[in-house]
């Protein structure tokens, strides 16, 4: 028989080990010791054409300041995990490019401490609430804006004899569906309209139907049951009739899935996506295509999104990091990035003066026109700290409707409940 002493020793060791790994709280990092060297780390994910423009701007910054910037490119998919792990290890990068700052709000550096003059009040109004901390801190800078909107297969529209939509006079939902179906029939494509499997993309439709997940402050659930149910019902009908590819939404599970392959394979003449596809399609599409205005219902315009640049309290180069963020988001830098990567600017001065794009300028102007038509409430909703979780929940609920497991009204109720929970979790 084994000695009870051995069991006792093993048990004691386990208890000691257990006690030693009790989770603790992190410090707020506000007193992080600052380093004298001029070395920055920039955690970055790339959309493709922005990488070279970013490298060029980094070169300019290095020449100007004598600093050395280590650009660390990571896949977008595990950006949040990596960043969380680095923060846990007290090894945060000096600067990061993010799509959602909500999970990191407590860790972000107040950029106002160093660059209030250069950054304060310079950016798109809608994002203010999102990037401002409880005490008025500037937690991040909106570095590029995305705008959801349709892309159409011009060749297929021409073959069907259907006139192209006028970017200055947006079509409405009924017109878009009717035209798309005509083009589908003439070209024998599998579908007429495809939408990415994304709650963010569905939010565009919701906004056009006159409602949003949250109000313009982003802090209150504001989804109108009637309007939202009408949107979900229309979405379900379009999928059930084969106008939209139902399988795409059902087969994706809980993963994000773009419908760009369907559009590039010319199996749908209308693709509901956004401006970030422009540079990829400029290179990859083997047919003539164009950006089209967002369809109107109760309101017009698209739905915003974007990326942010932020620094961290853990950074040992806070002043230099803030300077780098200010440089990368100066009027000149942002214009260069926008032009070369087909991004939309976030600076008020650039939005009002406009950007002349060397490639696909007309398409980019179509998106810029929709930026102006997009209601303020859509910005509030898009930049709500609870938007991401609610958008994910909406994908699950819409899939249930498509599978016949719930009704549009039940889906709307479930999304409302998810929005409320997400807001509570975000507080």
């Amino acid at each position, binding site marked *: 028989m084994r000695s009870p002493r051995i069991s006792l020793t093993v048990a004691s060791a*386990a208890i000691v*080990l*257990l006690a030693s*790994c*009790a*989770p*603790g*709280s*992190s410090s707020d990092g506000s007193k992080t010791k600052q380093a004298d060297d001029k070395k920055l780390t920039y955690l970055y994910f790339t959309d493709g054409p922005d990488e070279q423009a970013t490298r060029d701007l980094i070169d300019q910054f290095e020449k100007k300041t004598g600093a050395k910037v280590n650009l660390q490119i990571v896949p977008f998919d*595990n950006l*949040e*995990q990596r960043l*969380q*792990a680095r*923060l*846990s290890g007290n090894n945060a990068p000096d600067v990061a490019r993010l799509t*959602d700052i*909500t*999970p*990191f709000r*407590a*860790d972000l550096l107040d950029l106002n401490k160093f660059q209030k003059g250069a950054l304060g009040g310079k950016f798109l109004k809608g994002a203010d609430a999102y990037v401002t901390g409880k005490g008025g801190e500037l937690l991040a800078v909106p570095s590029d804006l995305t705008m959801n909107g349709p892309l159409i297969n011009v060749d297929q529209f021409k073959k069907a004899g259907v006139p192209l939509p006028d970017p200055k006079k947006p079509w409405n939902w009924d017109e878009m569906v009717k035209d798309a179906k005509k083009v589908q029939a003439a070209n024998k494509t*599998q579908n007429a309209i495809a939408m990415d499997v994304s709650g963010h993309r569905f939010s565009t439709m919701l906004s056009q139907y006159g409602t949003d997940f949250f109000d313009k402050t982003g802090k209150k659930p504001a989804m109108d049951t009637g309007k939202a149910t009408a949107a979900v019902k229309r979405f379900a009908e379009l999928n059930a009739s084969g106008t939209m590819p*139902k*399988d795409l939404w*059902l*087969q*994706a*599970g*809980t*993963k994000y*899935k773009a419908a760009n392959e369907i559009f590039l394979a010319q199996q749908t003449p209308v693709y509901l996506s956004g401006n970030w596809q422009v540079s990829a399609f400029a290179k990859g599409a083997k047919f003539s295509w164009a950006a089209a205005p967002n369809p109107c219902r109760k309101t017009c315009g698209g739905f915003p999104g974007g990326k942010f640049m932020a620094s961290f309290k853990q950074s040992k180069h806070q002043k230099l990091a803030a300077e780098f963020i200010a440089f990368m988001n100066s009027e000149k830098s942002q214009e260069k990035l926008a032009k070369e990567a087909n991004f939309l600017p976030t600076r008020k001065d650039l939005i009002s003066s406009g950007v002349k794009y060397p490639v696909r300028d007309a398409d980019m102007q179509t998106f810029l026109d929709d930026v102006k038509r997009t209601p303020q409430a859509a910005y509030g909703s898009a930049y709500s700290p609870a938007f*991401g*979780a609610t958008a*994910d929940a909406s994908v*699950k609920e819409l*899939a*249930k409707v498509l*599978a016949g*497991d719930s009704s549009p009204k039940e889906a709307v109720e479930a999304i409302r409940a998810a929005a409320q929970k*997400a807001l509570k*979790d*975000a507080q």
Partner: protein
Amino acid sequence: MTSTARMAPRRTVGPAVPQSGHRKSVNRRRSVKPWNQRVAPYLFVLPNMLIFGLFVIYPAINNFNISMYDSGNGRDFTYVGGGNYQGMLSEAEFWSAARHTVVFAVFFVTLTTVVSIGLALLLNQRIKGRAFFRTVFFLPVVISPVVVGLIWGWIFERKNGLLNSLLGAAGLGQPGWLVNSTLAMAVVIFVGLWLHVGFYVLIVLAGLQGIDSTYYEAARMDGASGWQQLRLITLPLLRPTTMVVVILSLINGFQAFDYIWTLTGGGPVGGTTLMVQYIYEHAFQSPVQYGSAAAAAVVLFCAVFALTVINYLYNQRKESA
């Protein structure tokens, strides 16, 4: 077989058993062994134990600890006691994942065991190209599960998939393999079986080759048919191997994630979301809930551990009966 018969070989092959009167002297002899000889075995296993402790034991204990805290970022923890378990057990999503995991595991383990024994019996025959067939069945094991999921996803795609193109050409329609929950679960079980069965075939083959051929010679001389040989010799003597296959495939079934993630993403409508995906989504997808994910991992561990022990005890009892 009598117990005496079972004991006999032990007496003949084992070392002489010391009588009780000699025990003290044996102990004394052991105690006078040089210290380096006593310590050496532990030193040999130390590197492995350190790695095992650091990367398996410590995270496992820490996971249990984290399951009692609430954390949205892995840095700030609030003690909630059993709150995560309570919250999880009241979540419909958890029960859905648990139900799907049980369904998946039951079919996966049963099919894996039956098919691996069947294939191993075939591959144990003296047939032409035996090595080739063994390689063919083992090949999927070395393919990345992520790639396996993607490839089968293309094959089972409704409109443009390979399978439905063939079925459509034959006038058999185009079933929505990945858009119907029941069909998707069947697909996931099939792909899991295809991916892993080669590994279990190897284990069973090793077990088959360990069976003394004289048993079969004696049975043939007594006029036993092939079926009788299988039922009365092969399967009973394969029981320890079968138990290994069942336990390993059970653990494998409860851990299934990677190829399902790339094949169905847990869809449609959560129809193939198993426990590991539930844990993954809570731990790594926004909003991150480390405590809930850790609690689900503890529950999964307890379930696998309990099933393994029950299976082990059942087999022990069967053997001793």
